């Protein structure tokens, strides 16, 4: 009955308003910092072959799992500060924090590294909070608050394993239980009183990230957590084409070992990589950011239609 749909959609009105205001505020932030908003194609011939991300096929193409490769081709062509808000598609991802079709904010900055991006994240969230008329002690529901004042917590992956898990990072990787410990023992402790940057990942866990000059086994990558929830993933970009090709091959091998589709090598991206300047980029889940400002723990609340209601 139509009245029921009308009721169901109208109940989301308040959250959809927050969503719209937040997206406008994000745009104002990037425009103010002289970023160019870009749109890149959603149906792609080549995607980054990552071991745990499954793409949706569309005729002879793939729907983007992120706009990363096209945005880096723009970056290589001299567009030094770009951002995009776009739909991304990943198969078999559905849960309280996952929709198979979701909205990603992605931006790239020439001359930046991952630490610069940490500061940009702090500034972005404080700007958005202010634009939405919220307090920097942000109410996140259930009577809890998150302090967004700078600086946020910064903790290496190594430290996080030592602090929250009975195994060291090295042991967790060796025993093949890294993902389980991260998800069950560590993530729920991150970003509880203020946001947390979890940084410095083993190189094999950052297939498009630059090696740290200080330690070649470490990739300059971070994940941002708020309220136990992963919000963003960032790194200093790997610009060495030969190394990137090897890293992709390792990811492809992991996919093949698990019986997953092996994606075609992203040739156009690799040939552009020769021209990629020193830079850093980040992908931030916009639906999850809206969740925080709405004080809800389920992503279904912040989109008008879930896949089940189509």
């Amino acid at each position, binding site marked *: 009955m139509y009245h029921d749909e009308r009721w169901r959609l109208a109940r989301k009105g308040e959250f959809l308003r927050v969503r719209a205001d937040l997206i406008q505020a994000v745009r104002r932030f990037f425009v103010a910092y002289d970023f160019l908003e870009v749109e890149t194609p959603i149906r792609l011939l080549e995607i980054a072959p990552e071991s*745990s991300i499954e793409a949706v096929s569309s005729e002879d193409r793939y729907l983007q799992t992120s706009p990363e490769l096209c945005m880096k081709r723009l970056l290589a062509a001299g567009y030094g500060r770009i951002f995009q808000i776009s739909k991304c598609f990943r198969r078999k991802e*559905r849960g309280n924090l996952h929709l198979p079709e979701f909205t990603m904010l992605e931006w790239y900055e020439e001359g930046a590294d991952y630490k610069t991006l940490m500061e940009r994240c702090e500034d972005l969230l404080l700007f958005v909070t202010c634009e939405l008329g919220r307090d920097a002690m942000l109410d996140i529901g259930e009577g809890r608050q998150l302090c967004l004042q700078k600086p946020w917590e910064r903790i290496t992956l190594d430290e996080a394993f030592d602090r929250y898990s009975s195994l060291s990072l090295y042991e967790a990787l060796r025993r093949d239980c890294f993902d389980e410990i991260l*998800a069950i023992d560590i993530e729920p402790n991150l970003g509880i009183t203020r946001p947390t940057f979890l940084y410095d990942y083993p190189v094999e866990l950052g297939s498009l990230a630059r090696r740290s000059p200080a330690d070649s086994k470490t990739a300059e990558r971070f994940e941002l957590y708020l309220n136990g929830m992963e919000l963003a993933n960032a790194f200093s970009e790997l610009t060495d084409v030969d190394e990137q090709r090897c890293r992709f091959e390792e990811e492809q091998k992991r996919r093949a070992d698990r019986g997953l589709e092996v994606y075609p090598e992203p040739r156009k991206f690799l040939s552009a990589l020769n021209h990629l300047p020193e830079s850093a980029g980040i992908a931030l889940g916009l639906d999850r950011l809206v969740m925080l400002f709405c004080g809800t723990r389920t992503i279904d609340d912040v989109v008008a239609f879930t896949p089940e209601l189509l």
Partner: protein
Amino acid sequence: MYEASDLRKNLKIQIDGEPYVVTDFQFSKPGKGQALYRCKLKNMLTGAQFERTFRSVDTFEPADLNERRMQYLYREENKYCFMDNESYEQVYLTADQVGEAANFLIENIDVEILFFGEQPLGVTLPNFVDLTVTKAEPWIKGDTAAGNSKPIVVETGYQLQAPPFIEEGEKIRIDTRTGEYVTRVKE
């Protein structure tokens, strides 16, 4: 054979020859890592519960249960009585075995009773049931704030949120998998 991505609340799987039901389920995917399927499982024979996290490569045998269509008759203290419509055989389930399905059981409703061998272990409801509203604030006509909702109670005593235009005595359809209001049913 089930894959990990089939896991969801109330799915019944076989582990070491015994039937288990998923009582709680959470999908997570840390960073760029693998998909993890975090489950609470209950042994349907012993009631013992435990937590386990599965990966997408894990597969499961469906629990080796027979389903028989039966009618719910009545509740007697802690026991729920069901009857086979053809043989008139009656079986009983405990409140623990019935679980949240009790919210949607009305007399004479047809359900599937799950048997492990000859032993009845649980009940599977139809995805949708129609229940009569027994308690609801009256609808103030002109209340056009369409997003409002109000708590209502249905004949089983189950409480849920519904649109403001739902009134006492009406029938509504409920999705038994989520416990949520679906639509008003015109008779």
